[in-house]
């Protein structure tokens, strides 16, 4: 229940024109002030809860996107910002473009727009909070279950 109150984000620009990335940063400025929801731009995958990706994914950025995603501790959500991140946009047919971010990692919220407006980005992130909360409950259940299994294994000395 506290995940909703303090989601920390990391943003990564896969291969966009940087327009959406600028809008993500703009939503952290005094005018929009994302911090009033407790949202901080962490810039560190190990501290982040929400992964905000802009731009379509290509063969060289796909490894980076997956790496950042894997380094984030559970529970986590992914928000694809901008039309390139959601589907590839006008670059969809390009020979070097794989498509949207969902070709590489599972995406939870799609925020279309070229460039996506800060209002819609904030809306998308706030929508992601619900999913984060749900994911947190699932994660807790999973953790309890895995601890139970571990205890069981230890009881029968099966862990080695």
């Amino acid at each position, binding site marked *: 229940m*506290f*995940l909703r*109150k*303090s989601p920390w984000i990391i943003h990564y620009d896969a291969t966009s024109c940087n327009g959406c990335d600028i809008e993500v940063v703009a939503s952290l400025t*005094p005018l929009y*002030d994302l*911090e*009033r*929801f*407790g949202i*901080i*731009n*962490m*810039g*560190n995958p*190990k*501290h982040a*809860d929400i992964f905000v990706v802009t731009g379509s994914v290509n063969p060289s950025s796909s490894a980076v996107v997956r790496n950042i995603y894997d*380094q984030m*501790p*559970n*529970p986590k959500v992914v928000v694809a910002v901008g039309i390139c991140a959601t589907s590839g946009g006008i670059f969809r047919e390009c020979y070097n473009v794989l498509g949207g971010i969902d070709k590489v990692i599972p995406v939870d919220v799609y925020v279309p727009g070229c460039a996506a407006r800060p209002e819609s980005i904030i809306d998308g992130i706030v929508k992601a909070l619900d999913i984060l909360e749900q994911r*947190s409950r699932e*994660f*807790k259940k999973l953790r309890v279950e895995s601890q139970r299994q571990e205890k069981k294994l230890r009881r029968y000395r099966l862990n080695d």
Partner: protein
Amino acid sequence: MTPIDYYIHLDNIHLKAAIYIVLAPLLGGLLAGIDRKLSARMQGRIGPPILQPFYDVLKLFQKEKIIVNKFQNFNVILFFVFMIFTGSLFFLGGDLLLVIFALTLAGVFFALAGFSVNSPYCHLGAERELIQMMSYDPMIILVAVGMYLVTGTFRVDAIALYDKPLILFLPGVFLGYLHVLTIKLRKSPFDLSMSAHAHQELVSGLKTEFSGTTLAMIEIGHWYENVLLLGIIYLFFSFNSAVGVAAMLLLYFLEIVIDNTNARFKWELTFKSTWVVTALFGAANIIILYFAIRP
């Protein structure tokens, strides 16, 4: 009798320690929340709720633990334990010198935690943390020496009950302490080692590799530390507890203003400026005091 006087005169040592261990993180977290709110207002933003630091820490307890090697958490736990130990020594009225050495030990474990992982950002943060420790430690020891010269004792409870205002004897030491307080509270211009605002050069500095519960422990450890540092400010004004509390709050506000009006220093400037201030205000004050009170 104010609550602080009541606390100082409390005879039950266990109760005293329990009060500190329970109340210090609550107070520290609340101060951090007020800090964030005021900073936001100074920047023309609305800012997070006052209880935001508590939400952050409680959230971190719900997150998955990612541990890259087993020494990492060991060092952080030692940092946390020694930080509580340091604060307890201080608030139980122990020896001020011992408090300072235990504080340094906690700092060393914190830097070791940074060195125990492989991330270059962690190493950079830990190196800067060590440089910061080198910068502020002489001044903090001078605080203890100055208080000893005036009151004739290192014991915190005796210093807190000293009836004359220490600030009148130690104005230079106090100014020097304010300078290193900015480093200890990890405020701009000295937020070199692990500032969240420096993420383009440092990622998260020292705490880059720490996540979940461990990161929460680092945060709570710093709340304990901040309360201890404000406690040292109180000693300068302990002749009157109302004045002491007012001074603590005022100086914390001053630190927030400094934080919001200064750009980050490079480590060389941090080191040099701190030692110059230490010599100019701290050491000079001690020397003058020594000749003034010599029989």
